[in-house]
């Protein structure tokens, strides 16, 4: 009963915030609504007894992905009015494609029959929730049955890492590199300069520039 009430609360808020994500005018609001949506999805997962998935969703999506999203949205100045200029022009064909896709998906999902046989032939039977904890069930699958995938995924990450470095690493005179030897060789004499500032007067920037030149 209580679980039922909570399910409806979470579900309604999830759908409502999902609608707000696509209808919000301000992209920052949209991202915040997406975060709200994820929180509600987390609630649904907890109701299902999948507490590990719930926490992962919270940590990975809200903690990492959404923060990144917010960064991007706040850093780049996108004129959404400009972007949605041609919207009406493409609306009819877009609606047509959307309707066709919707009809297809309804046809496909409508044809789904819950077949006990299908569930039984599932690649890995789901262990009983009462005997194994969530985390243990995950661990057994990921690092036992499917350890091969973990290793392969690790290789993909390595390739991504190499790619990020070789495509962006700058070498040569233009690169701003840390020169450890110079840093270590600095003495108080070269690094610090005592300046006597007259009371009631600010330290003028001209002095700083002069100082930097002297370095």
């Amino acid at each position: 009963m209580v679980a039922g009430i909570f399910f409806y609360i979470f579900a309604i808020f999830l759908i409502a915030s999902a609608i707000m994500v696509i209808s919000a005018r301000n992209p920052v609001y949209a991202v915040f609504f997406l975060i709200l949506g994820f929180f509600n999805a987390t609630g649904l997962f907890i109701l299902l007894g999948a507490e590990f998935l719930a926490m992962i969703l919270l940590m990975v999506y809200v903690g990492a992905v959404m923060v990144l999203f917010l960064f991007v949205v706040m850093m780049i100045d996108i004129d959404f009015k400009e972007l949605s200029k041609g919207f009406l022009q493409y609306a009819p064909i877009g609606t047509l494609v959307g309707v066709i896709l919707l009809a297809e998906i309804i046809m496909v999902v409508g044809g789904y029959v819950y077949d006990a046989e299908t569930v039984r032939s599932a690649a890995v039977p789901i262990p009983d929730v009462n005997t194994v904890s969530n985390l243990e069930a995950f661990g057994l699958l990921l690092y036992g049955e499917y350890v091969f995938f973990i290793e392969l995924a690790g290789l993909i990450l390595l390739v991504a890492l190499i790619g990020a470095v070789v495509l962006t690493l700058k070498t040569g005179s233009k690169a701003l590199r840390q020169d450890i030897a110079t840093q270590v060789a600095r003495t108080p004499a070269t690094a610090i300069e005592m300046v006597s500032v007259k009371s009631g007067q600010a330290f003028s920037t001209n002095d700083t520039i002069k100082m930097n030149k002297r370095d």
Partner: protein
Amino acid sequence: MSSENDFLYILPELTLIIGALVALLIAGFKGKKSVGFVANFGLGLMVLAAIISFFLPAEVVRVFNGLVINDSYSIYMKILTLFGAAATLLMIKNFLQSRKLDQPEFIVLLIFATVGMMFMISANNLLTLYLGIELQSLSLYILAAFNRSSTKATESGLKYFILGALSSGMLLFGMSYIYGFTGSTSFDLIAQNLSENGSSMGVIFGLTLMSAGLMFKISAVPFHMWTPDVYEGAPTPVTAFFATAPKVAAMAMIIRVLYSPFIDISADWQQIVVFVAIASMVLGGFAGIAQNNIKRLMAYSSIAHMGYALVGLAAFSEAGTSVKAVILYMSVYLITTLGVFACILAMKRSGDSFEKISDLAGMWRNHPIIAISLTIFMFSLTGMPPFAGFFAKFYVFSAAVNEGLWLLAVVGVLASVVGAYYYLRIIKVIYFDESKEPFDKMAIELKIVLGFATIFTLIFTFFPSTLLELAQNAAQSLN
């Protein structure tokens, strides 16, 4: 759980992975100086992996809880892929300096791409397939954009990446439908489920989406848009790699997917393959006519050739003759394309590369041997007897005719007549156009590949039985 024996069957992949990690360390410590050494090292690794693959037991074994399969099909295709990758590496290792690709990471990424291809070939689970594809594609995206001072290369890398990501999305969407409607990601269990219950709307939906994702990887029409731009924009050594080993691996993967989990619903995927084959052959034939850049031309040529190979695939038969024809086609395509790219890489004047077809003018006078080889390859790609390409096409079309797919065979022959125009035009330019300055002396590595490809294309006609037998064995192990 996995046993130690499982590792035996992925020993070729393990060799490459460990070798690539060692190469990465060398690259990290030695920097750019080590590029020559790392290239040789990578070449050695690939040869070693091919030798190990050759000696693997050819029986059908499923390892790592059935996630990976080993059979003579996978062994044959892996050796073919490794051969393609090794030959490309051999050809391009002298070009790395002149093309601003002189970083040992280039070789490391090339090895990782090859590892991805090998896992694609021996996948026995949707997830293995996906991870293999991603490992391969991600390395290839980086390779395409490797020369980052060139805007063209960057553009081609970005284009390839965005379209590739889209196709991966479709592939995953399709896989999720397949999983939902059959209850498994394992090829064996999917096949079992489909043979018991037949296909349903959801499975067809998933299959269609999956085919879209897979067809992108072999650049078949209508998922070919990226090919000409990426081929043209990427540095020529990278293009040579794109056109050879990944194509073979992707085709091997498509054969595996269609003939292993979805064998019982062949009527459903046959229509898709027939459509894609016809569209690829026709577009590849017509669009190549207007090209002036030889790399773009090779892109359209590869689109058309994937169409021809798919003709064989569409001619589904229990006896495995169709798979045999496709395997043979891909082998001949690989070797001929390697030869053509050896010629393209040789198009250098005082260190600068040229890629216009008109730059080949009068090659006959300056470089008669390269000219003759290129002529042989062009005739082979056209499908003229007695060169290897003719027999490859012959087996593919006869497989189609045997299964009553006359339309495919007729369209295929007509499209190759259209395509003959642009292959023959190159021959005309070589022999009859006003001669230009001679090209630089050909590197010894290019000569080796060129010589091998020429000899293969010439004598395959007279000794086809060995390769046919191997292809036959490989095809049979799939069933």
